[in-house]
Every structure is written in structure tokens, then in C-alpha cells.
């Protein structure tokens, strides 16, 4: 049984297109803005979304997402509101939604309960940045039972053996982390190393591989596009949202910002 995420990835693959995914912090700048942003950005050509549940101690995140998480928590973001956001999006759209959460908020609700609630509220997948293979294996059947794709992350430090294992264990796609480090916009990436890493991953993994961490400019896309199946943009967009005064302006600015990425990712000039 394919869920919305898996179906979307399959469609993209069949039509030879790259995937484009955005990360948004749930409740930043407000819960209503998150719902509106998803709906507007989907129309602008974004394929699916990661909705980050803010956590007090996000060790894999850089300053930008730390700030947006803190602001969202201060404004009262909580688990129930995350479910409301997903349900509100589902009333308007069938775009695939992935929850991004650290382990503890899910563990705290009880893994089974949390996974079921996420699925029932309209999420199609989960990315849990501090849940490595060794810890996620015992939970695999729970995710499968609830038709929630557990997307595994792959790092430049992962051994070839881990790459193969992660490729086998992941669902939907594999999230390739571009550099050693935390999330955050970087002007440039070590392109030869990142491409080398992507090539290694691709030769061992049959699922689509998407690249995230460090993207900030559309000019980066053509330098990496040949070796991956799509891109994930996060902190750079959050930075744009830090300077908006209204929900309407948030959507306008975000659409404006992602447009050149959509264009660049959609171009059919791949030289693998």
C-alpha cells in the first residue's frame, strides 16, 4: 500500500523529475501561517513538506531552526496543535506531509500512540534526526502498521555498509545530509565531496535519495542535481520568515523565495 508520499515519489520518478521538499517549523511564525504556507507553496511547485515539531533541545539544528523552534514553543506550540495543523492542511490539500521530530516528544507520548496519532492526523512520513538504525529497527513494524514512512538519514561519515543497511531500512526516500554539521544555510558546499558521497549512496540505494542541509541559493542546485533525486530546503526559508509581519506577507515572501529553486530543480538539463 503506497501512501501519499510514496505515490508522489513514484510519480516524480516516472516522469523523470526531481523532488523538491521544504522544511517548516510548526507554529512559526504561527500555526495559521504554517497551514497557509503549505497550501500556497504547494501551488508554487513544492512537492512535499517536512513539518518540524519544535523541541527544546534540538542538537542536530543550527541557530536558525533553534530560534524558530524556541519562538514557536514560546507562542504555545504543542502536540495537539501539531495535529490540528496537519488536519487543517488535509482539509485543503493532499500534499504529502512528513513530521520532523526528535525522539523524545514521540517517546513521551508512547511510540505506538504517537505514530498512530500522526498517521490519523494526516502525516505520511516521519524523520527523526536522533533515531539511528540501531534504535529504529525495533519500531519498524509500528510505522508500517500505521502506514507512516520512516525516512532514514544518511551522513557523509556513514560507512558503505551502513549506507546499504540504511537504504534497506528506509521508507519513501533516504535523506542525505550534505555535510558533517548541523542544519543551516551555507553559501557553498564542498561540491566534489558531496557529489562523491551522493554517488556512493546512489550506487547502494534503490530508493530515491534527497539532499538536505546547507542549501541556500538556487545556484547550488545545478552543481548537485546530477547525483540526487531531489532537494530539501529548510533554514534559508526560515530566515526569510523571520522578517515578515503578517500571514499574507509570509506566504508572498516564501513563494518569491522558493520560485527560483523550483525553476532550477525543474530544468531538464541533467548531465549525470
Amino acid at each position, binding site marked *: 500500500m503506497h501512501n501519499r508520499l510514496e505515490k508522489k515519489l513514484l510519480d516524480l520518478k516516472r516522469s523523470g523529475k526531481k523532488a523538491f521538499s521544504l522544511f517548516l517549523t510548526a507554529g512559526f511564525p504561527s500555526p495559521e501561517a504554517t497551514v497557509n504556507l503549505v497550501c500556497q507553496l504547494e501551488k508554487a511547485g513544492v512537492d512535499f513538506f517536512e513539518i518540524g515539531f519544535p523541541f527544546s*533541545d534540538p542538537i*542536530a539544528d543550527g541557530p536558525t531552526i533553534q530560534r524558530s523552534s524556541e519562538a514557536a514553543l514560546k507562542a504555545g506550540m*504543542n502536540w495537539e496543535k501539531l495535529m490540528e495543523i496537519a488536519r487543517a492542511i488535509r482539509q485543503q490539500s493532499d500534499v504529502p506531509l512528513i513530521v520532523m521530530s526528535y525522539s523524545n516528544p514521540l517517546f513521551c507520548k508512547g511510540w505506538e500512540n504517537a505514530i498512530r496519532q500522526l498517521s490519523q492526523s494526516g502525516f505520511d512520513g516521519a524523520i527523526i534526526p536522533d*533515531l539511528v538504525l*540501531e*534504535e529504529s529497527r525495533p519500531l519498524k513494524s509500528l510505522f508500517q502498521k500505521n502506514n507512516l514512512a520512516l525516512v532514514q538519514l544518511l551522513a557523509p*561519515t556513514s560507512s558503505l555498509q*551502513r549506507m546499504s543497511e540504511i537504504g534497506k531500512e528506509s521508507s519513501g526516500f533516504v535523506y542525505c545530509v550534505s555535510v558533517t554539521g548541523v542544519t543551516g544555510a551555507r553559501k557553498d558546499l564542498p561540491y566534489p565531496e558531496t557529489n562523491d558521497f551522493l554517488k556512493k549512496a546512489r550506487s547502494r540505494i534503490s530508493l530515491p535519495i534527497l539532499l538536505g542541509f546547507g542549501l541556500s541559493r538556487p545556484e547550488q542546485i545545478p552543481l548537485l542535481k546530477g547525483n540526487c533525486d531531489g532537494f530539501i530546503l529548510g533554514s534559508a526559508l526560515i530566515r526569510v520568515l523571520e522578517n515578515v509581519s503578517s500571514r499574507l506577507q509570509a506566504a508572498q515572501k516564501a513563494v518569491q523565495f522558493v520560485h527560483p529553486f523550483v525553476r532550477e530543480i525543474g530544468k531538464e538539463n541533467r548531465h549525470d
Partner: protein
Amino acid sequence: MNSLPDKRGYFGEFGGRFVPETLAPALEELEKGYRTVGHSKNFVEELGSLLTHYAGRPTPLFFARNLTRHLGGAKIYLKREDLTHTGSHKINNTLGQCLLAKKMGKKRVIAETGAGQHGVATATAAALFGLECAVYMGEEDMRRQNLNVFRMQLLGAEVKPVTTGSKTLKDAINEAMRDWVTNVRNTFYVLGSVVGPHPYPMIVRNFQSVIGKETRSQILKLEGKLPKVLIACVGGGSNSMGLFYPFYKDRSVHFIGVEAGGKGTEPCQHAATLSQGKPGILHGALSYLLQDPDGQIQPTHSISAGLDYPGVGPEHSFYKDTGRAQYVTASDKEALDGFLLLSKMEGINPALEPSHAIAHLKKVAPRLSSRDSLVLCLSGRGDKDVVEIQRILQGSTHA
């Protein structure tokens, strides 16, 4: 001693390895390095020699005659970790980890610190082994433990102020982990307590268990029998685990861990993780945790920076749930009284962390027979706290 953790790094249901994928291979490398290099004859001898000639081990087991007479009941012995080089038990672990870092070919070490004792001990070992060193410390703790900041700088370490979150130990660990994720290829993370992802709780426990091993043979020599009670403060829990672990199978020996009761039992007023928390995942391990109903980590408070932490080592959680150890609390005020009591009775200024354990003595010693003994781990000396204590005492007289 028990054979835990298991292969996946679990002590019963606690522990594990909850980290970003980037760090998973580094933890495998560390585990392998520890099991091979760390157990080689060469390593064990070199570390043993350093502990003796550099750190000043074995530390004395001191019979606190005046305190015993004052409280009545069991004979009170103090394990004098405050007399080690750098003034706390932290040196036992940092010599071990920095030596391991060097043997594993790492050029740079990083550490987090709360009270500054682990930071000083890491900076010391790094200087000795010629390693580059950066220490993350919360801004609030830098204020409280200013003297230790300067000590670290004198030792050649870079002290990196942490301005996120509560600006204390928890946030210093977050920042150290972010540094490690970024520089993992050339950097060794010297974790200061029995917390964090596997294999840290095991490695730190093993390096600290020199405390309990010495204590066991010293007390047997002095008393001819095992003590009734072992008592130590618990923040992350490294001095207590170091004392307890070698007595694990001595079922007649009762373990008491004393947590920071702060200003009261309401949320955010204390750091009594085992007494008031529930299981959760933070800093790479599943263990007891102070958290809200959504799993967000709660702010903590303690008079002592070293205990001001919302988590605790997974092996302590295992001890709690299996009943092997008992965990209690002492408030800020009680700890301060403990500090003053030991200073006046025995001429020893203890650090504020073990002052919590001292405070609990009056509830334990009088109930035991004078034929019995108990051992308290005096994990560090109080020089670092004198200015803060002066501030508090003067503040309270003016109030």
C-alpha cells in the same frame, strides 16, 4: 560488578544510542577504540601511572571523627576526591579519555562543563597530552564559576560561552554535541559524566570506578568489613556511579544518591531527575528526565552548577527501577548547611555538589549502629564556590 550495558548499550531498559547519523560511526569507532586500545596493557599501565604520579591517587579514606561524634551513629568516612589534582574526581575520567583520544590519533578535544570542574580537568589533561581543547560552558555558569573559567584559559583551553536555552550544563552539552557533529573527523568529545550515548556511560563509569575500587580495599583494611551505606551526590551521576559500581554485588551495602532539591518540589525549582522525573530521551540516551507532558525538557534550578541538569546517567535509572539504589534530595539551603557543617567540623571546604550528600548524612548516620560505617564521596573541593557562597550568605543577612 555487573556485566551491563548490553551490546546495544542498554542497562535494562535505559541507555542506548540516540544521536544523529553523522555521529553513529564515531561512536562505533570510540567503542572499538576503547575495547581494544583502552584495554591494552600499555594503556592500562600508562593511565595507572598517571593516576598515581600526576593525579595523586589513591586518595585517602578519611575517618571524620568530629562529624561522627556530632551526628552519632555510624562511623563516617570521607573518600577524599577533593584532594586529587585539579580538585575533583573529574580528573579520573579526563585522563582516561584524553589518553584514549591521543592513542586514537585525535588532535582536538572538546568538553562541556557545568561547575567548571570537568572543564578544568579536561583542559588539564589536554595540556598534558598536547591536545587542542575547547570547553563549552553556559553563560550563567560562567558567572557562577568565574574562577574556573580563568583556570581553563590559563591551561590553554578556549572557553566557549553558551547563550542558548537556560545557559547552563544542558545547553553546554547541546553545543558540544553540535561542535562534535561538525568536527567529528578530527575531534574527540570528552564527556564529563555517565550520560550521553553508548559507550559513554560505560566508559566514564569504568574510569571513575577507581573511586569505588580504592574505597572497597581501604575500608576493608580499616574496618575489616564492608560499609553499611555509600552516599554521594547525583547530577549526571559520575562520582556516585564511580563509588557504587565496584560494590554492585555487595548486596548488604546500601547505595544512596542525593539529588539537588533546589528551592522546592515544583517544576523548574529543582534538578531532582530521579526523584521527580520520568523516562525520556535526551543527549543520546534513554533515562529519567525532567520534562513537560509534551516531552519538552524543563528548566532546572540548583545552587550548585554541577547538579543543575535535567537528565541523569542511564545506569542510575536502572539502579532506581531495580531498587539497587535509593535516591533522595537535599535542598539548596540544606546543601549550604552541609557546606558550613563540614567546614567547621573537619576543616574541609567541600564543593557545593557533595555538600548535598553531606546534608543528607544527618538522616542516615544516626540510624545506624556505631559498629557500622558509611562512606561519603567528597567529590570535589569548595574553593570554586567560596565567592558564590559569600554572595548568598551576605545577601541573606542583608535581606
